[in-house]
């Protein structure tokens, strides 16, 4: 069951669909280019979980800040990152967000409040809690959002930061993306309870479980939490139940140990198809509109790839730059 679309103008709802679609197409392309050897290192795809990033970020303002994980493309795009500079970064070019120094696991855009992907599980939670403290000290009503996985929720920083945020009433949203697996290990084997959100009670803060493939459910929970945070009510833990449709990382010939039937079942709950269906049902989207959206998304993506390909690689000497700021 889809939760009802909230008080959002149809334009906004279509924009949410567009963002999700942009993430999906961006990663499909990134995966293909990775396998083609144009993108290096490691690529973790967010495909299937787009409603979480877009649902949460739709509740945020530009001055709000987020942090991401090793699976960061979705959060970047949802917060409004520039596709050109993202793709250029994956291509290892000078024009990339990190001048080619970061790659997929480290894309950041502090200008839009995206404090970076992070290769360490739970590594970002404390950093963004510092951004929440900064927001509180600035006193402008901004919030900070920590995205992290079910795996990360077992790590020390989760506990330390939730307690600090609860005690200091920091304007924080802790978004657990429970996709049921940490790499190849099932959450059921590493969590005593199936709901991470149950841990919120130990800090005296709200703990909410939502269907993470239902963008409006995510949006509404995030919105409530953001309101609460902005008005001094402190942090909220939101657990979004979702699923990644692809393997943990893109790699040729890497077996996915999960049950194929489980994967198929979750593909049936695809968050993008779901929103598309709903918008069509409500008369906010028709074939023409959908085709136009696909075309526009693909055009932006092609432009990003073209930008990346036309951009120069860094010079070897640039490796020695940026270790320290001036």
């Amino acid at each position: 069951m889809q939760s009802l679309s909230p008080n959002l103008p149809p334009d906004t709802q279509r924009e949410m669909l567009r963002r999700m679609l942009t993430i999906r197409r961006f990663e499909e392309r990134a995966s293909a280019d990775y396998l083609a050897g144009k993108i290096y290192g490691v690529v973790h795809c967010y495909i299937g979980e787009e409603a979480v990033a877009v649902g949460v970020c739709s509740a945020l303002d530009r001055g709000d800040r987020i942090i991401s994980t090793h699976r960061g493309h979705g959060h970047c795009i949802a917060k409004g990152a520039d596709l050109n500079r993202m793709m250029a970064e994956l291509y290892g070019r000078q024009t990339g967000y990190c001048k080619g120094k970061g790659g997929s696991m480290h894309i950041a855009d502090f200008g839009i409040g995206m404090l970076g992907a992070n290769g360490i599980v739970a590594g970002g939670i404390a950093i963004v809690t510092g951004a929440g403290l900064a927001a509180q000290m600035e006193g402008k009503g901004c919030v900070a959002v920590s995205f992290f996985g079910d795996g990360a929720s077992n790590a020390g920083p989760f506990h330390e930061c939730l307690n600090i945020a609860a005690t200091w009433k920091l304007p924080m949203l802790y978004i657990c993306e429970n996709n049921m697996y940490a790499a190849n290990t099932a959450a059921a084997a590493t969590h005593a309870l199936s709901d991470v959100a149950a841990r919120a009670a130990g800090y005296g803060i709200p703990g909410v479980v939502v269907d993470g493939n239902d963008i409006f459910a995510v949006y509404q929970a995030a919105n409530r939490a953001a309101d609460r945070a902005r008005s001094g009510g402190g942090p909220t833990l939101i657990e979004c139940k979702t699923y990644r449709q692809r393997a943990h990382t893109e790699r040729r010939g890497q077996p996915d140990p999960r049950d194929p039937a489980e994967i198929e079942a979750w593909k049936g709950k695809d968050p993008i198809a779901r929103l598309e269906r709903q918008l069509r049902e409500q008369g906010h989207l028709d074939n023409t509109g959908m085709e136009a959206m696909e075309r526009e998304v693909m055009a932006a993506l092609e432009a990003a790839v073209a930008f990346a390909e036309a951009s120069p690689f860094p010079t070897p000497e640039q490796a020695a730059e940026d270790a320290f700021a001036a």
Partner: protein
Amino acid sequence: MRELTYNEAAVEAVAEEMRRDPKIFYMSTDALPPLLKEFGPERIRATPITEAALTGMAIGAAGCGFRPIVDWRQVTFCFVAMDQIVNQAAKIHYMFGGQVTFPILYRAAVGGGGQVAAQHSQSPYSMFMNVAGLKMFLPSTPYDIKGLLKTAIRDNNPVISFESSRLMTRKGPVPEEDYAIPFGKADIKREGSDVTVVALAWLVHEALAAAEELATEGISVEVIDPRSLVPLDAETIRNSVQKTGRLVIADEAGPTAGFSAEVAAVATEDGATFARLQAPVKRVCALQVPIPYSPILESHVFPDRKRILAGIREALEGCSPRQQTAR
């Protein structure tokens, strides 16, 4: 002799020891499929992503008579466990006056070359060398890793096995029979008389390639692989430098306060070695920066056979005559 990859040799060492000793068990954030299949989930434990807890739990289990192995996987992930490593594992035997032993093996993949950027391309073994109370090694061949892992698993102390990511799929001969390689015994991977190159892991192979090339010019390079970092075989290094008079150190890590600095000190603080040293010590290391992602940047940061070659040539030039006179 049959050939195994570096990784296969490592897994075989663990499996053989686990068959021998039921007190050994294994913890890691993902279970290694071949070991899981043979030993089951009680002895090959897939755990939450809590390297700090695993590292500490190994200490407790070891103090109760078990012989745990904790696979940190990437060395990067062990930094969340550093309190348990530095404050607990390294010191516990000493600070409790030696009343009980703590046989623990920690495994960690190190090094770069995979374009996985700063966090996932680290070679921080020197940080651990600086901590008193830990043994550690970094092998360069399938033969060495198997023999050193066996010694480590049988050792009654916390031991860190640093394992080179670049070498995981590299093959080499590994005998079928049981063998162990003692700690503190460097391996002279190639004998030579003009210059000593002390190299680690992947750079052993790069140094051998450089040596091969220089041999065609009549330059004889000795390549020493210390294998274990703590204890370090200072004697073999010093003897070699006393013979060649020249020392080049090749390390995939940055130089500052690193393995390469330690080898330089070990050579130059020894009277007999210093007296025979004909040229400044030469460190051929990574640039002292985090490791970048883009291939052009990344390969510029790491040393390779070319830089080793250049380093050797520099060492062969030695001091300029004026300076030698001034001595």
